[in-house]
């Protein structure tokens, strides 16, 4: 019996003590006619060896391509020490630190994590993580609506340059509470928010403004102006940021005259593998005054009965297990292990290392942009002010080009046509520090060949 230690003798002993004849007797409170039939649709179990064979074959199918897709999930070098440390049994197989005295490892680590995220975002308080960037943004929106004392509005203004799937997730989550989202339009030329359009939203009451830095296209937004504008019109400002970029770019806490109120984002760039999309983690930081509206767990430092420093879950009155229907969120299990890895990552890199990774990614991106210049059928659509992602317009169908590049072992980028039809045949391309110049040349070659083959096909 895989993973079950009971021998026949053990089972018999237990049955005898309980005083029943068979295990089945233990289920006698379940109405007979409800008992399950054999689960014939499920295959027989495999031992570990046979399982590894099956899974290896499957993993192999997805392996081996050179990846230039970003769009919210980024390939960075992950130091070996990150996961060899995070995977220690005591981190991996512990539960949520409800018994603080037996969980000081996890608790101190999260306190350190919170500190690091505050430093990165320039804000005062961090929680212990939410599921991912997108659902984290939904929580941030709900938080802003609860927290905005100046506004009773259930409306929020979202920049059209925020990741389209984030916007979808936010909508799909918050609309259940009757909250509506309006979109700040995109300047399709500059691939950032259309500042001209701001004035048309000034007359309405919005609880919050959501902007992204860098935005979905990799373009940098004028976050100072936008933050001031939002706050001047009574909105709490929520910044969606890439934490890696924050080593290079002004952090939310420093936007405009007073800083953004809430920062949220995807923690994946900080030491987490792409891994089909998760587990990653969403981080949320905010100004001190908003702390009681924060969703999710928060760890605090305190002392024990001998006065020794220790760590514990705090402000639990915000949480579902205490507050039930009045909680700030329903979240319970979060992304602890991902946070553990990110904390080790940030410790290894330090601010200087993080900055170097950001700079190297940025430079590689510029290098690819320059290599693409002048290729027939390719137009660079992004302005110069990008972080590590940019948009190119092609002279033919993007999804076909992506398929043709994939056949050459190159994953060319994220197809924008489904989400931004107004941009034409556009592809979002990402380059990070892991790419060498010869990788970039492979991209260029694959793209050229795909465009040619595409042309032949037409």
């Amino acid at each position, binding site marked *: 019996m895989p993973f079950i230690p009971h021998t026949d003798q053990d089972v018999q002993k237990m049955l005898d003590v309980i005083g029943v004849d068979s295990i089945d007797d*233990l289920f006698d409170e379940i109405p007979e006619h409800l008992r399950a039939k054999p689960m014939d649709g499920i*295959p027989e179990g495999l031992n570990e060896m046979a399982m590894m064979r099956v899974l290896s074959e499957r993993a192999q199918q997805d392996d081996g391509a050179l990846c230039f897709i970003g769009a919210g999930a980024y390939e960075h070098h992950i130091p070996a020490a990150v996961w060899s440390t*995070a995977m220690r049994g005591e981190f991996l197989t512990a539960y949520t630190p409800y018994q603080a005295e037996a969980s000081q490892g996890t608790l101190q680590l999260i306190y350190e994590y919170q500190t690091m995220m505050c430093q990165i975002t320039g804000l005062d308080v961090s929680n212990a993580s939410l599921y991912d960037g997108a659902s984290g943004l939904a929580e941030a929106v709900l938080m802003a609506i609860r927290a905005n004392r100046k506004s009773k509005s259930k409306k929020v203004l979202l920049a059209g340059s925020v990741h389209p799937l984030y916007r979808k997730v936010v909508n799909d989550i918050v609309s259940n509470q009757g909250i509506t989202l309006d979109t700040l339009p995109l300047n399709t030329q500059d691939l950032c928010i259309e500042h001209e359009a701001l004035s048309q939203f000034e007359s309405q009451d919005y609880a919050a403004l959501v902007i992204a830095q860098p935005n979905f296209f990799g373009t940098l937004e004028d976050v100072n102006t936008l933050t001031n504008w939002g706050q001047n019109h009574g909105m709490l400002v929520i910044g969606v940021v890439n934490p890696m970029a*924050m080593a290079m770019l*002004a952090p939310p806490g420093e936007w405009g005259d007073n800083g953004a109120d809430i920062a949220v984002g995807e923690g994946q760039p900080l030491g987490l593998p792409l891994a089909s*999309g998760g587990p990653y983690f969403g981080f949320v930081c905010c100004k001190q005054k908003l702390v009681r509206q924060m969703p999710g767990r928060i760890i605090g430092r305190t002392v024990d009965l001998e006065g020794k420093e220790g760590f514990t879950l705090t402000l639990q009155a915000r949480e579902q297990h205490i507050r039930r229907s009045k909680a700030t969120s329903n979240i319970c299990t979060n992304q602890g292990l991902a946070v553990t890895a990110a904390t080790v990552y940030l410790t290894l*890199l330090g601010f200087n290392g993080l900055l170097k990774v950001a700079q190297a990614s940025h430079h590689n991106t510029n290098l690819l942009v320059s290599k693409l210049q002048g290729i027939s059928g390719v137009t660079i659509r992004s302005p110069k002010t990008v972080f590590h992602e940019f948009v190119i317009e092609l002279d033919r169908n993007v999804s076909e080009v992506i398929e043709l590049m994939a056949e050459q072992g190159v994953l060319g980028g994220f197809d924008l046509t489904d989400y931004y039809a107004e941009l034409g045949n556009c592809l979002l391309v990402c380059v990070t520090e892991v790419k060498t110049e010869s990788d970039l040349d492979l991209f260029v070659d694959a793209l050229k060949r795909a465009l040619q083959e595409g042309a032949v096909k037409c």
Partner: protein
Amino acid sequence: MLIFENGSKGRNATSQIPQNVSEDTNLPSEFLRTSIADLPEVSELQTVRHFTNLSRKNFSIDTQFYPLGSCTMKYNPRGAQQAASLPGFLSRHPFAPESYSQGYLSCVYDLQQTLKEVTGMAGVSLSPMAGAQGEFAGVAMIKAYHDGRKDFERTEIIVPEAAHGTNPATAVMCGYKVKEVPVRADGDVDLEALKAAVGPQTAGIMMTNPSTCGVFERQIEEIAKTVHDAGGLLYYDGANLNAILGKVRPGDMGFDVLHMNLHKTFATPHGGGGPGSGPVAVGERLLPYLPTPMADCKKSESGTVSYHWVDEKELPETIGRLSAFMGNAGIVLRAYIYAVLLGRDGLLRVGENSTLSANYMAKLMSDAGFKLAYEDRRATHEFIVTMSKQAKELDVTAMDFAKRLLDYGYHAPTTYFPLLVPECLLIEPTETESIDEIEGFVKAMIAIQKEAETSPEKLKGAPFTQPVRRLDDVKAARELDVAYQKVME
């Protein structure tokens, strides 16, 4: 020592830092950061040592018996970890074209099929990222269903008082009001109260079965009828599915929708708080509303199977997306591997043996003089002991027992949940703990009971063997210190 107190200005893990990076940038200065983020400045060895030593301050399944009720702390197979870490899985971008996704997609598809079979439901989506998000998806589907029928009057979700905190919190997140119904002394729902509570305003009921009281709700069919007759739907909180795997299926009990906690029943590691995965399964009525993405497959004429993602194009009435990508994709994968390892028979044995262990342990506790909250009932995969008597007579609480257990090398059971049982310990041994551990735990409880009678201060002061003694939670909340501030020297 905090990692921030450990470093030295300019120190770093050199080997991890990109070399020869120019510091120039073509970006206008108004975009750039001018402040420094005060991150640690330590060497690679200091990093490894710091976090290795931190880890040693945790209890965990790998080191201790951890009978946390409702949490199913069972062995996390290392094989699942290893297979999920194969390079092809780790490096796959969530937006990789389907030609580079067949391996992962096939795992998703197969797990969907397995979960349908296990639950007796018609459709499964794996995208919710934990139990609570699964609940959210489930209740949102209930809402979508009523909305789809233009039945906008249903504004209430009913929740038994024993319910997990996520249930009422979720109902509110979906825009519902919560109506609690009481639980009887025998652990079953007060059916009369329920009958009085339902009505045209009832959107549905959220139930756990076996309930968090550690008993099987025997009136489940009447409850289902009651709620269905009132036009509501039945939500099953499947966090406790471990207890009934292969023995009884939520679909057969009359539930319309449920979530499962793969990080419990399917043995993926808890990671000190997460990540989890909370797939939802639905009956026919709710199929159109399942959250995306899901996996589906086609067979070509030549017989080869190819997999693809199902999104809102194929499922226009979906409640939508709950995450930017594919939920906790890697946890889904580990759960799939667990299912592969166990197979049909193995899954059945989980339900049987987790129940066997819990009943054995409950009997031992009861024989030793501890008071079971529901003595006349079968235990399911977990059971409740109440320490009211000790609290009253010896002034020793369930929490005191919990803390003292740590000194005996056992993690404490869940304390003070469910709220309706006073001074309770909710104990779940799981099927992967040996009879030796179970007996050892009971012996420790007996020893602590003796201490409670003879030297209660031992319990009040506990734990004594942990990195810290009992912590001051009040101070933590009052003098909030949630991020380290460097003290300038």
